């Protein structure tokens, strides 16, 4: 049984806390958050957990075996370093870090401490993405040629102090959201040689961004990751992919998914939103807990998470410079 110390009390912390309630080998025994909602959060999503305002105090005082970091991106490094210093296994939300230097520091810290460490590239646990990867690995599309993904949303309206809208903190849509697809495509195809990105942005009280990143993989395959925080408020969150090879094609479009449709309904009632029996977040955290219990290395390595950050940072740099940028040259 793993005793989890959860850091954060926002959107992702809620998702993780709810998932832990479904995992028999783990329990959130402590919550640390700077937000004043922490008591209410813990009572609702982690009943019985001790509540702290300071994460390091929680790591020292609470009887935790692992730490789960669900906080704004720039705080990942100090929090993971603090866990590593104490020999506590750690899970960290994506993106791993805001800068290449912070990503390097985290990788060094967790490897030197020898802790079990995993980053939340949850797309690998979404069945529609995992299934495509399995089929590509089995050779069912032949040699990959063009791999296109879409991830389209309105600007995040959650997050403490609207930190998502502060690019210095979140890195914007490319580091915070497109990174899902960067990690996925790197997982499927391999290392990225260069990216060329175009991003537009405007402010309507929230940071709106719409971006396209052309990718050239080292093996010669190509890709296009299109990511948006520019859709109007209330627009459905949409993901899609089209993965084409010389022997076949895999297509997925969330707009075509209609497993459950509801019309009307009595006041105060609702149908469950997800047609999946188990949330991808639960699957992801189950894997982490299993690795902690068995000492296995998680499927997502610290370096995987670092490389995904580097691709995203290369994309940001490319959009700023108007030139193709190699992830290898980021932060050097």
């Amino acid at each position: 049984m793993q005793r989890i110390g959860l850091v954060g009390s926002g959107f992702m912390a809620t998702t993780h806390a709810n998932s832990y309630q479904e995992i028999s080998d783990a329990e959130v025994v402590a919550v640390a958050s700077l937000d004043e909602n922490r008591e209410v959060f813990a009572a609702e999503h982690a009943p019985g957990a001790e509540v702290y305002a300071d994460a390091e105090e929680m790591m020292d005082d609470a009887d935790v075996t692992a730490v789960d970091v669900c906080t704004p991106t720039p705080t990942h490094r100090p929090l993971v370093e603090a866990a590593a210093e104490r020999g506590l296994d750690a899970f960290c939300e994506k993106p791993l870090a805001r800068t290449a230097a912070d990503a390097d520091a985290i990788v060094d810290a967790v490897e030197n401490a020898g802790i079990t460490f995993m980053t939340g590239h949850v797309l690998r646990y979404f069945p529609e993405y995992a299934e495509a990867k399995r089929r590509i690995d089995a050779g069912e599309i032949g040699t990959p040629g063009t791999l296109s993904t879409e991830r389209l949303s309105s600007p995040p309206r959650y997050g403490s102090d609207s930190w998502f809208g502060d690019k210095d903190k979140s890195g914007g849509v490319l580091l915070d959201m497109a990174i899902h697809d960067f990690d996925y495509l790197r997982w499927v195809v391999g290392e990225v040689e260069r990216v060329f990105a175009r991003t537009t942005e405007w402010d309507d009280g929230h940071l709106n961004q719409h971006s396209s990143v052309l990718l050239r993989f080292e093996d010669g395959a190509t890709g296009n990751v299109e990511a948006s925080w520019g859709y109007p408020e209330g627009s459905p969150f949409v993901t899609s992919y089209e993965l084409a090879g010389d022997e076949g094609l895999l297509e997925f479009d969330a707009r075509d998914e209609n497993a459950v449709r509801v019309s009307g309904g009595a006041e105060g009632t609702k149908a469950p939103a997800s047609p999946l029996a188990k949330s991808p977040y639960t699957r992801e955290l189950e894997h982490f807990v299993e690795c902690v219990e068995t000492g296995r290395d998680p499927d997502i390595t610290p370096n995987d998470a670092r490389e995904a950050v580097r691709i995203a940072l290369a994309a940001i740099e490319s959009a700023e410079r108007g030139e193709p940028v190699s992830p290898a040259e980021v932060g050097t």
Partner: protein
Amino acid sequence: MTVRIGICSTAHLHADSYAAALSEHPDAEVVGVTDVGERVADARAKAEEYGVEFLEPDELLAAADGIVVCSTNADHLAWVERAADAGVDVLCEKPLAPSVSEARAIAEAGREAGIHVGVAMPLRFSQPVRNAKTAMEDGLLGDLRFLSGTNRGQMPGSWFVEEAESGGGAVTDHSVHLVDVVRWITGEEIEEVYAETATRFHDVDVEDVNFLSMQLTDGTEFVLDGSWSKPDEWDFWGDATLRLVGTEGVVSVDCFDQKIKQTRDTEEPGIRSIYWGSNPDEGLVTDFVEAVAGDRPPLKTAADAVNDVLVVEAAYESVERTAPVAVEMNEPTASTN
């Protein structure tokens, strides 16, 4: 009056659709089909299929008020020059030419002879595209900031993969439809293009991957996937989509997302999709017939299409240099040829 239209070469498979639309047009008559050299036999067969005569080029040009050129890209210039000599208007298959110099020569030949030379851009007559244009003109988008399009298809084979006949692969074949639509809808030109190309899907000597990342003259970003990436077994020939992202709204069009899904156990077993939406080729052909009758330029002129070919040439230069390339556009000439 009946407008007499001749079809010059059937090397491009779009000749079938244009012939069908012309034969159904109340004010048009297909006077015949012609071709030269090795393609005469194919053209004779097509003439029979369309139920019209095969004529020698001079006979056809003498009998026609206008011609539709469906030759290889490399032969466009020669057909336009013949039409110019005969004083006959032209609707030329896209892309206008395999090179900018030939595209300019086509526009110049038409201008000097005083004939109208149009270019077949059926997406300008796609109702979803027109709805997007209307929405944009109505101000729905607020400020337009980002465009993303796809024009993916199956690899066409034949002369399309012979660089000497086509000028190039997917970049040449599948860039200009959406580039034209975007230039038409926005009134802006393409200022800069970065391209990623490769040959990944087929054993051919030209590129079948075609990703273009562009910027318009007003700073709007425009990304296009015009790859030949659809498998031979796909349920349709390809797609044409465009998303317009603005500060107030987003409009997305999928020009051929009006399809019946058909499954057959016999004859041609398998699943295919049958397009039932309004046929853009009918609008294209009607515009040309009316242009010939009214002695006016077609909606899309050769002079305007030179700028599409400039984008294609800049894309190839970008691949050579692995860098974005500035497109040196001609002066806007959209309203005349």
